[in-house]
């Protein structure tokens, strides 16, 4: 019952960490250094908020004409569609994510172990890719409906694909892994003991799941659903494929169509408000309760074998979800890519493939590292900050997440304006930045990506560290451990799965990201997503198939690493 019980894997960690803890140091008077934690949190928040504030200042001088006109015409409808879409996708991915996590983590059926990690794969599928593949295959002009009309006549009814329903299905299919991954990690890391205790006290499996496991999963599920809703909120490519009119579409339409950045910023504040609503909702879902595991690290739920028809039904459910969200679309992309490769106008930039790949990798890796390090610092600032700072640090932590709610191009232009202002300020004191830093630099790109993607890292890290009981932290501190030692020897090992999850979520987001890299990339710095976009934006879907496949393939690498982590973390319980 001490903090020395760390994850059983990798082997050796237990012994090493407990040995380290045995060398108890005398408490030293390091209270003063605690101030550095809230400071770090606030500096981070400032770095995130500054670029957004640069654009938000336009709201101080509202251009009321467009604002009023939009309220009178399109905005009310957009608000309704946005809310319907968000709720639909939240419900869809919540249902898929938690039920699949429970099914694969707590049961054994044909292929259950394989499905356990395979079901994360759709994380590698950009929603805009699944969107255009779905429309071209199942949409009105696709082969499926063509066949349908041949069979049942030109006016035969077919469910409308290009619709709100279609959009909700596509988003849920690609976004459910955000819920699945976090729920599964939580099931693996902690829920087992409580579940088995409840069972031994006479609760049936369903009742035990509902009354004991589900409440414990709440922080993880809430974090996952929040990420899903943010992704949906700021999307503007996929929704347009499906003719769904959200506020984000409105922001782009006003910005690009009326050339009125101020009016667009005003609309963007509505997107921000929605995001704040999502964050509030997440707090609500997460609940007040905190579930530290008394035994340091809990064990996973022991899988119960399913038999007969139920076992096959479970396999079929996994196959269907995987097929629709990943297998079939990938097969279609492969078919298109093969058709193009055999045609005479193959993709001419094929020889630069390795270069694009390398650029994508650089960006994704660095962004993931920056985001996870910052997330660990910010999360721990809340623990180690002196009591008086708790609420202020909490606010800083919330602010660092705000970039996720801001559409990509807004972040990009904001970062640019901030860098140019910084450059001007430095020049005034004779320290001008080299041009490459001020505009179109790799540094600016990573900065913008970090502003945008801190939230998923923060959510995952927070959810992970919340499982570390406060009294373990307190014991270590009272034994004289400094905050960074507590992080290094207790928090990080205990929350390893969550940290890996955070890194993967960010890396995959960064690989798929589009608007920021389009705007801020240095000259000649092309990535896979830029390549895909240039073709897809011209409806050259067949040519876009190859780079789209490349994104999926590259994104699968971190996703596979995450899968392995999750499996290993589960130890022998499989």
């Amino acid at each position, binding site marked *: 019952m001490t903090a020395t019980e760390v994850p059983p894997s990798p082997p050796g960690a237990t012994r090493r960490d407990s040995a380290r803890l045995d060398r108890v140091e005398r408490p030293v008077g390091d209270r003063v250094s605690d101030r550095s934690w809230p400071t770090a949190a606030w500096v981070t928040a400032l770095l995130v908020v500054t670029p957004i504030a640069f654009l938000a200042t336009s709201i101080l001088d509202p251009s009321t004409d467009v604002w009023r006109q939009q309220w009178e015409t399109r905005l009310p409808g957009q608000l309704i569609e946005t809310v319907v879409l968000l709720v639909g996708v939240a419900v869809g991915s919540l249902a898929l994510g938690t039920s699949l996590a429970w099914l694969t983590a707590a049961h054994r059926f044909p292929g259950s172990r394989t499905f356990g990690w395979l079901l994360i794969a759709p994380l590698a599928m950009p929603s805009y890719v699944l969107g255009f593949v779905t429309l071209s295959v199942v949409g009105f002009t696709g082969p499926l409906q063509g066949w349908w009309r041949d069979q049942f006549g030109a006016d035969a009814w077919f469910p409308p694909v290009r619709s709100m329903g279609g959009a909700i299905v596509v988003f849920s299919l690609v976004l459910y892994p955000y819920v699945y991954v976090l729920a599964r990690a939580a099931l693996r890391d902690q829920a087992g003991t409580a579940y088995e205790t409840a069972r031994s006290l006479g609760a049936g499996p369903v009742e035990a799941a509902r009354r004991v496991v589900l409440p414990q999963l709440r922080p993880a599920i809430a974090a996952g659903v929040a990420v899903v809703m943010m992704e949906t909120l700021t999307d503007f490519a996929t929704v347009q494929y499906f003719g769904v009119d959200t506020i984000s579409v409105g922001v782009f339409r006003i910005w690009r169509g009326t050339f009125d950045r101020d009016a667009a910023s005003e609309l963007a504040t509505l997107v921000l408000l929605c995001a704040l609503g999502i964050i509030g909702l997440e707090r609500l879902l997460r609940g007040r309760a905190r579930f530290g595991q008394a035994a340091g690290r809990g064990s996973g739920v022991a899988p119960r074998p399913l038999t007969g028809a139920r076992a096959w039904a479970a396999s079929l459910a996994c196959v269907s979800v995987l097929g629709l969200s990943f297998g079939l679309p990938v097969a279609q992309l492969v078919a298109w890519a093969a058709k193009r490769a055999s045609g005479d106008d193959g993709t001419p930039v094929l020889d630069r493939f390795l270069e694009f790949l390398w650029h994508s990798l650089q960006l994704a890796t660095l962004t993931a590292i920056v985001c996870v390090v910052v997330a660990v610092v910010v999360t721990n600032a809340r623990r180690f900050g002196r009591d008086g700072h708790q609420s202020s640090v909490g606010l800083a932590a919330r602010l660092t997440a705000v970039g996720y709610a801001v559409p990509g191009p807004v972040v990009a232009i904001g970062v640019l304006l901030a860098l140019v202002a910084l450059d001007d300020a430095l020049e005034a004191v004779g320290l001008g930045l080299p041009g*490459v830093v001020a505009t179109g630099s790799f540094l600016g790109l990573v900065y913008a990506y970090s502003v945008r993607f801190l939230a998923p890292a923060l959510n995952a890290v927070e959810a992970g560290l919340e499982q570390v009981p406060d009294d373990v932290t307190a014991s270590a501190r009272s034994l004289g451990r400094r905050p960074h030692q507590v992080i290094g020897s207790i928090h990080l090992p205990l929350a390893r799965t969550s940290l890996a999850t955070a890194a993967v979520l960010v890396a995959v987001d960064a690989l798929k990201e589009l608007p920021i890299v389009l705007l801020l990339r240095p000259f000649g710095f092309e990535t896979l997503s830029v390549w895909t976009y240039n073709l897809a934006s011209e409806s050259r879907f067949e040519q876009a198939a190859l780079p789209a496949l490349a994104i999926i393939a590259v994104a699968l690498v971190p996703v596979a690493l995450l899968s392995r982590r999750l499996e290993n973390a589960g130890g022998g319980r499989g």
Partner: protein
Amino acid sequence: MATLAFASAACTGGGDDEVVRVYSGRHYDLETAFTQFSEETGISVEFRTGSDAELRELIEAEGDETEADVYLTVDAGNLAIGAEAGLFAPLESELLTDAIPAELRDPDNQWFGLTLRARTIVYNPDLVAADEVPTTYEELAEPEWEGRLCLRNSSNVYTQSLVASLIANHGEDRALEIVEGWANNAEILSNDVLILESIADGLCDAGITNHYYLARLLADDPDFGVELVWANQENRGVHVNISGGGVTRYADNPDLAQEFLEWLATDGQSAFVDGNHEYPANPSVEPEALIAEAFGTDFLRDDLSASTFGSLNAQAVLLMDSAGYR
């Protein structure tokens, strides 16, 4: 520190004077034309692609630090607004003013149209009888087309500039009526290829698209079942948008940039327009064979100046919202 190394590595050619840097809202087949330019002149071309509006914001935000020598877009609206924001340097080039007709360039020669894209009426000949083939944009707003049209959404700049041209030609009230009629009659889709395929498959009978999307489909399948008709030939002519560009005010290499534009407007026209089946802006250059044969070269163009409908773009967006056109 590794990041700084990446940054400087990516900024190749920083010390090289023989480089033109282009911000381009146009993506198709840039490389063919740019490579040819480099081969002929020894000047290398570096480019960054993106959406028109975002690149324009980028140039504005970068101010005198901008790396862009040339800004290329796919519609007149962004060129007009860029000129208003003072992003361009006016050019004194006889070569350019001779090559590009007056209505296809800025009155102060800040920007020049380089390619033409006609936005016109397309239809399925199996579903539309020969005597009821629509010939004007206005006609498509009539009740007999209810449920028979596929049109592009209002987020799209081609739709916006077409509506801007309606405002310029008819005034706001009549334009609103027409757009309301369209909204009532049409299924609104998100791209031109989808519109053409939907017409071919019979989801709708007719629609409005840019000519080169049909050319592209015809290049893949000569029997593709959609026909094109040049709109409004009895009155003002078919609406034509341009893609074009100008030299930025803070260009590092304004002379090379001008040379580059001059080449695109003359010797480079075919390399620049043919890959995308567009019509050359320079009237002395022949269009490629496919569009010349399938659509012809002899049609009446609405000579409304690109800078006029460009400046009406914002009004067009708000008008479509009022009309309930998504």
